[in-house]
């Protein structure tokens, strides 16, 4: 069977290499006097892309710093400056800027930004970004609201994902959206004045088209993964491909996902699978690979076939432009993206033909998914960590043996 086991996904390797090259190229462009921006994920990237201003998304940057195991070092940096953050992950970029040391910074650190943009949705976000901008000597532009300011809005309706693409205007308060559009226009004007770059509506239209095209390919990959048993692509590869999200609305970003789709399609046609002996299919809710993925595969022939972000591209990012107003359409996306509702999670687990779902939650919080999952008969295990400990393994075993397997009569291990 060895010829049917998938190796590393080719396109995922290319994606990783591209990211590094991209940053090196950005550094060179900035060295030549071009502008560079930092913004919070999903706030404004497409508009920077449309204006040809390279942009680093701070969630992505924090992830790079955390992946390079610099978190504890930067915690010290913040402490020395008198800060004791509750949410270190969010403050890593600020710490890196404060440290200002290319030798310690991942990938040699970021070039000097011309502007930092972020939302005011969290008290911490506004403060951290303002301090970060000051550290870099550039302006910080706060945008009111920001993504998923749902606490003040009525919760999204059941099966909201079915309305997101064509009926997004029903899911957002028009007055708030007006403010956001005005803010985005002011920011565009500011960028035009300070960077000399131009904003072209036609370019933004193209960006909006490319986003939808990219998300449609993503939807096709998701459907292929969901329908194919055994699963054709490993969870780490699926997650690696998510980096293409940071190049939304560009030809490059779209081509990456198209190539991803083609590679997976070819695998399916040739019968190449990530785990050919797959007996159980599981969904894993965060957007990481847990340390016990190998244990699950070896002991139970279980594959992690989908994760917390599997459906975000197609369910949340694709938007139909209304009234030829791509800016307003995008602004809506900058404000409402998704809500982690149990019905959405359950839909994903069922779509991917899962036998059970593992979620990692905060021990202080009850599982939001549990009531609906219990009622539907979809086994759900709530864990407090993604670490591979003896205790976690025994909880996983107990759950699989007492809840998942009896539910799944056809399986003999």
């Amino acid at each position, binding site marked *: 069977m060895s010829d049917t086991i998938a190796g590393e996904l080719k396109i995922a390797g290319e994606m990783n290499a591209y990211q590094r090259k991209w940053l090196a190229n950005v550094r060179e462009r900035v060295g030549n006097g071009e502008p560079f921006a930092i913004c919070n994920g999903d706030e404004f990237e497409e508009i920077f892309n449309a204006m040809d201003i390279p942009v680093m998304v701070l969630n992505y940057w924090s992830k790079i710093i955390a992946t390079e195991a610099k978190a504890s070092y930067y915690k010290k940096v913040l402490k020395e*400056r*008198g*800060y*004791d*953050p*509750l*949410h270190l992950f*969010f403050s890593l970029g600020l710490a890196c800027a404060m440290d200002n040391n290319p030798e310690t910074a991942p990938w040699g650190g970021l070039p000097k930004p011309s502007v930092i943009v972020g939302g*005011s*949705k*969290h*008290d*911490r976000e*506004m*403060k*951290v970004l*303002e*301090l970060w901008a*000051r550290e870099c000597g550039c302006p*910080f532009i*706060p945008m*009111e609201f920001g993504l*998923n300011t*749902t*606490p*003040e809005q009525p*919760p999204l309706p059941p099966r909201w994902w079915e309305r997101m693409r064509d009926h997004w205007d029903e899911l957002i308060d028009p*007055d*708030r959206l*007006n*403010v956001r559009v*005005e*803010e985005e226009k*002011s920011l565009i004007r500011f960028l035009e004045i300070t960077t000399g770059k131009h904003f072209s509506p036609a370019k933004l239209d193209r960006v909006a088209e490319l986003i939808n095209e990219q998300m449609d390919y993503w939807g096709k990959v998701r459907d292929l993964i969901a329908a194919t048993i055994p699963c054709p692509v490993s969870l780490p590869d699926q997650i690696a491909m998510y980096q293409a999200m940071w190049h939304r609305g560009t030809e490059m970003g779209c081509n990456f996902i198209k190539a991803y789709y083609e590679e997976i399609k070819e695998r399916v046609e040739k019968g190449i699978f990530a785990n050919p002996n797959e007996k159980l299919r599981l969904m894993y809710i965060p957007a990481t690979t847990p340390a016990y993925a190998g244990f699950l595969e070896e002991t139970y022939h279980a594959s992690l076939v989908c994760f917390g972000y599997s459906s975000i591209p197609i369910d949340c990012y694709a938007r139909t432009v209304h009234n030829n107003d791509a800016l307003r359409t995008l602004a809506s996306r900058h404000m409402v993206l998704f809500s*982690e509702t149990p019905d959405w999670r359950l839909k994903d687990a069922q779509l991917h033909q899962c036998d059970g779902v593992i979620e990692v939650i*905060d021990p*202080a*919080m*009850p599982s*939001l998914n549990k009531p609906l999952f219990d009622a539907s008969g979809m086994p759900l295990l709530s864990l407090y960590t993604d670490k591979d400990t003896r205790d976690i393994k025994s909880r996983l075993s107990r759950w699989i043996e007492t809840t998942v397997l009896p539910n799944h009569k056809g399986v003999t291990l």
Partner: protein
Amino acid sequence: MTPFEIIQTHYCRRDLAARAWKQKGGKVVGYFCDNVPEELIQAAGFFPYRLSGDPTGTVEIAEKYPPTGTMAAPREGFVNSMFNRLMTGEYDFLDFLVVPHARETIHRLHQVLAEIKDQNPSFHLPELYFLDNLHTTFYWSGVYNRLRWREFKTTLEQWSGKEITDMALSDAIAVTNENRTLLKKIAALRAADPPRISGTQALRIIGSSMFMLKEEHNRRLSQFLDELDKLSAKDGVRVFVEASPLDHLQLYDIIESCGAIVVGEDHCWGNRYSDVLINTAGDPFEALADRYHNKSPCPRMFPLSRRIDYCVNSAVSAGAQGAIINVYEFDEALMWEIPDAVKALEEKGIPSLHLRNQPYRIADPDLLTSRIREFIKSI
């Protein structure tokens, strides 16, 4: 009772006036924070009542409803306490509750309360209203805020069944302006050399203004100020307090037991509540909107520099010799400001003691007393 004793009674028994009002058939509109235009509530004929926490109380029920969402901030103790008190029925005299868009943990209460109200009517929560207002003072934020304040006015009119006329609004503004003017006199007496009013007295005076009918508060406060000559001069090291919301006296009691006097502060239960008046020339709604849009900033507002300037200017004008900075555990809005505040105060020759991650209820008063005493001595 002396006027101050009456004020003090209302600070201790915070529901006294509101319950009496209710008994007479009036309705009470509760609200969080200091950014809800009380004047509109008053002009609609309701009793505006600000919610506060109770550091001696429990938070058991609130903890059963932790904040949810990937990036959701944990609630500060005072927020959990207010939430808990709503759930235990301590606020059963509220007919309506306005949750403003304020610090994250407060505005998120709207959603959780709405869910509880919907699913568990046995908690008898008041009718809820979310009042949005933004984090910046830019032009477009002002346009938007006005829209939401107009909607709030319309809602109040629906609740009361009668229109809020310009005249009624101007009258309410006159009453709150008088209150702020009197409170500014209190602030000036604290900033005087020597101070004539202590910090703990001031907190009671300012706080009770949010628990009493404003006219009554004005009357008592005027009487209190009429007897100024009875106030003895206070002595002690002049301390400024920069803090998370202090809706109780514990910290000031400790500071003032250490040979210091709190001459001013920057938090929403102190001078910041009252230091900006409403312009009485022109359209009253516009003037009200202008005041709430531009009032002294609380830590949720942009930009940082405005906050730091406010803190330092307040400390300098109070003639502070030192500052005590008290940041509650989980108060992220304030936490990120402190290194800047410390530096800016220092540049003005004001040394500070930074108390981080403090519990809402002071857990070890003796330990804190000795830290503060040592700091006061070092000034």
